[in-house]
């Protein structure tokens, strides 16, 4: 369905909805994706999907209703379900959806050269496998996927925006004896991923981590790779910056505005306009114009993230932080490109334990920040060189307080989903050996 064909029913839906409720919002997604999976070194399956779905939100006297369906022909039933859902919701302060605004609709994450075709996935897998040949380890599994999607947001206040996205993602798993390696890459732009490097790193970590030695229990300076850091940051620290969690009593930062919450070296911000970043967007999931948000500047907490509903409820201003995981449900508070930044330096001039990834980050306590995870592909590291691997150990600590023990940020950053992170050196963290 071409987008102008969609206009007719969207306009009908908005008109119909306004007969019953104060405001109506429609979020419509159409997409196409291709992926191919390896089983060891051979392609085992190729899949394609045609996705479509619409989410409807209605607001009437402060009561918000929502529903969704992936059958646009049944938008009337979906609208009825959204209105019925609103009857059950508690009435909250509401000052209206945003009207039409002068927002650039030039897509920031669309690559017209990306071909969402099986042959593209095949080429990416072949390059990953070529990279994997660099080290003596066996490929166990891998995947390459390409996607394109068009998103339309319209509301009864006159906002009507469309945006197009493309995406490419790669991953490869390898094993050498009983030592595993995993690497991945993703981008909105086909020439920004490096499939050869993904393959090379996967077999590198599998091969080089073999025959690791144990480490004795104690406190050590550690270097978290962007992946390991992102796993801990995403499950604990970032939710504490969510305005709804703050006002609901679910954030450790609730009473910390204006206070130091991290080493002065650290700044954290959301930059929705970062060129080439996969979360870049000019309007949020409610049609608010996006802007940079400085959450933590030089270690001091300066802002929380808000969507319209939370902002109206608590007398704040939306930070255009509404996001949707898909077409279903209501928008929630999130971020676009979450960046950890600060003065960069050499983080391996002294001997550290490098941790490439962790097992069990999602079991961290999201309220207190305490965690104990198994470390993966860990090495002693000095002067930028991987030295002897560490066989197995646990890392225990607190995601919040470890930000007061920062020993430095690496020169390079890397995208881990919508997080853009350096490697982070953290002093004196508890390692439990076996």
């Amino acid at each position, binding site marked *: 369905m071409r987008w102008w064909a969609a206009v007719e029913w969207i306009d009908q839906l908005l008109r119909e909805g306004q007969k019953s409720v104060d405001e109506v919002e429609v979020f419509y997604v159409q997409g196409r994706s291709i992926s*191919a999976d390896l089983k060891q070194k*051979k*392609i*085992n*399956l*190729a*899949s*394609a999907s*045609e*996705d*479509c779905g619409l989410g409807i939100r209605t607001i009437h006297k402060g009561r918000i209703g*929502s*529903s*969704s*369906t*992936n*059958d646009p022909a*049944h938008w009337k*039933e979906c609208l009825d*379900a959204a209105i*019925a*859902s609103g009857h*059950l*919701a*508690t009435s*909250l302060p509401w000052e209206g959806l945003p009207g039409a605004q002068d927002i650039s609709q030039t897509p920031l994450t669309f690559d017209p050269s990306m071909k969402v075709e*099986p042959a593209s996935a095949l080429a990416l897998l072949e390059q990953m496998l070529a990279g994997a040949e660099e080290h003596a380890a*066996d490929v*166990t*599994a891998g995947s390459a996927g390409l996607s394109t999607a068009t998103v339309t947001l319209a509301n009864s206040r006159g906002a009507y925006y469309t945006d197009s996205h493309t995406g490419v993602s790669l991953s490869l*798993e390898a*094993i050498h004896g*009983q*030592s*595993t390696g995993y690497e991945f890459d993703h981008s909105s732009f086909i020439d920004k991923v490096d499939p050869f490097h993904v393959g090379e790193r996967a077999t590198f970590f599998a091969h080089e981590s073999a025959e690791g030695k144990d480490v004795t*229990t104690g406190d050590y300076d550690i270097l978290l790779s962007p992946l390991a850091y992102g796993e801990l940051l995403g499950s604990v620290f970032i939710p504490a910056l969510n305005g709804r969690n703050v006002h*609901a*009593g679910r954030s*450790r930062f609730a009473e910390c505005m204006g206070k130091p919450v991290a080493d002065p070296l650290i700044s954290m911000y959301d930059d929705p306009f970062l060129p080439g970043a996969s979360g870049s967007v000019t309007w949020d999931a409610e049609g608010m114009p996006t802007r940079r948000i400085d959450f933590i500047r030089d270690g001091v907490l300066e802002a929380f993230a808000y969507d319209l509903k939370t902002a109206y409820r608590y007398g704040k201003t939306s930070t255009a932080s509404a996001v949707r995981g898909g077409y*279903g*449900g*209501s928008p929630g508070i999130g971020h676009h490109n979450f960046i950890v930044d600060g003065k960069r330096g050499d983080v391996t001039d002294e001997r550290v334990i490098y941790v490439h990834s962790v*097992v*069990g980050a*999602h*079991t961290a*306590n999201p*309220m*207190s920040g305490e*965690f*104990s*995870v*198994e470390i*993966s592909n860990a090495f002693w590291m000095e002067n930028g060189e991987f030295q002897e691997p560490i066989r*197995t150990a*646990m890392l*225990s600590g607190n995601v919040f307080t470890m930000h007061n023990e920062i020993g430095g940020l690496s020169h390079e950053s890397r995208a881990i989903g919508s997080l853009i992170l350096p490697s982070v050196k953290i002093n004196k963290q*508890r390692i*439990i050996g*076996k």
Partner: protein
Amino acid sequence: MPNITYYDLRHVTGQITHIDIDNGVFESAGTTFFNKAVLRVISNTGWGILQIDNYQPCTGRKFDELLQEACKLSAITQEQVRLGDVSRGVLAVPAMKEDPRSVSIEEKSAILAEIEKGAIHPSVVNRRANYIERVEQVAFSDSSGNEYAYEMCRSGFNVLAVASRNGNTQMGYEREHSIHGFNLRQHRDLGKKAADIAVALLDAKGAHGGKMKAILDPELAGVFAHEAVGHASEGDLIQEGNSVLKGKTGQKIGNDLLTIVDDPSIHEFGFDPVDSEGVAVCRTEIIKNGIVNAFLHNRESLAAIGNGVAGHARGMPGEPPLVRMSNTFIEAGDATDPEIFEECKNGIFLKGSRGGQVDPGRGVFQFNAEYGYLVVNGECTGMVRDVSLSGEILTTLHNIALCGNKRVMSPGYCGKGGQSVPVSDGAPTILLCDAVVGGSGMD
């Protein structure tokens, strides 16, 4: 039409009803609808798979066009996929005691609100309760003429209480999910239980890391079985060479008293009347008396590596099925709780779980308890919080010293390959020697 050796189609329609209450405010409540299908074709080599949103059942030329589209995808595959011979049959879905659809959303909301209000306490700063009800109509057909259809309803709720004092924030979390019908009425006290745990944790100490004896309650021991053995026994991982259990059939990796089973046929939260490839489901004893006995399979992994039965393929609506666990458990032994505590003498008693994770190729797993108690001279003493354990698949199972005499199952969800499916895990209370406990607690 290209040379199609096999195809199957799994079409799932349904609706999801949810209620979300946050600190007494009804944030959202209502119903969403979905219609998804997955068409899988084997043509010459491997799988060509179409994932179809809003599928309209069709036959004749229109269906042939879909098959051809899937064949085009299959054309880039290189591996010769073969499918194992399997048993057929569909189990009856157990009747629900009270069909959630017969209860108005207003009544559901009122009972959920009562549960949420149960968490009110002077130290509790946030209460949140969610109800979820998922009804699926499933239709399967394949090129061999097999067809089945069934309807399943899963429903349940979670309640969270967050307690805070002087910057110390802790949480209590309770959940109940079921295939047996509406289950809010009989669990009205769980909000209070969540609050009591959250408040008690304010005075709990952080655990000390190190090796010690650990008593695991049935819920946590079930997660242990799921992470330590279940994933590593999945046939697709064995086929890829990404499990330490590959080639270990017949080898002893655990104590004689240890038997670990996956059984999609029992009426727990992971029940499947038939698997996502149209294969009859049955019990698989993965570990039998400490010995690696059989793997979990789909048709492809069964043909590739054998040793076990198919019937363990599960997929979310519209997604290709993967080899998955269903109801995974450690069989009960004969030890009583007092015997387990007496044998432990000094160690830690761990309860509840926030989940776990495993690297099956490396054979290393981690799982987490919600809270626990230090055991001194066989008695529970001070409360501890945020306790994780890690272990190695090929050695840790030897350290199960005792299995209790009563098995309890707990419902949950398990993620793999971007798909989340309902499961249950269970076990009796177990005693684990030389458990590696993570924690940075200080005196």
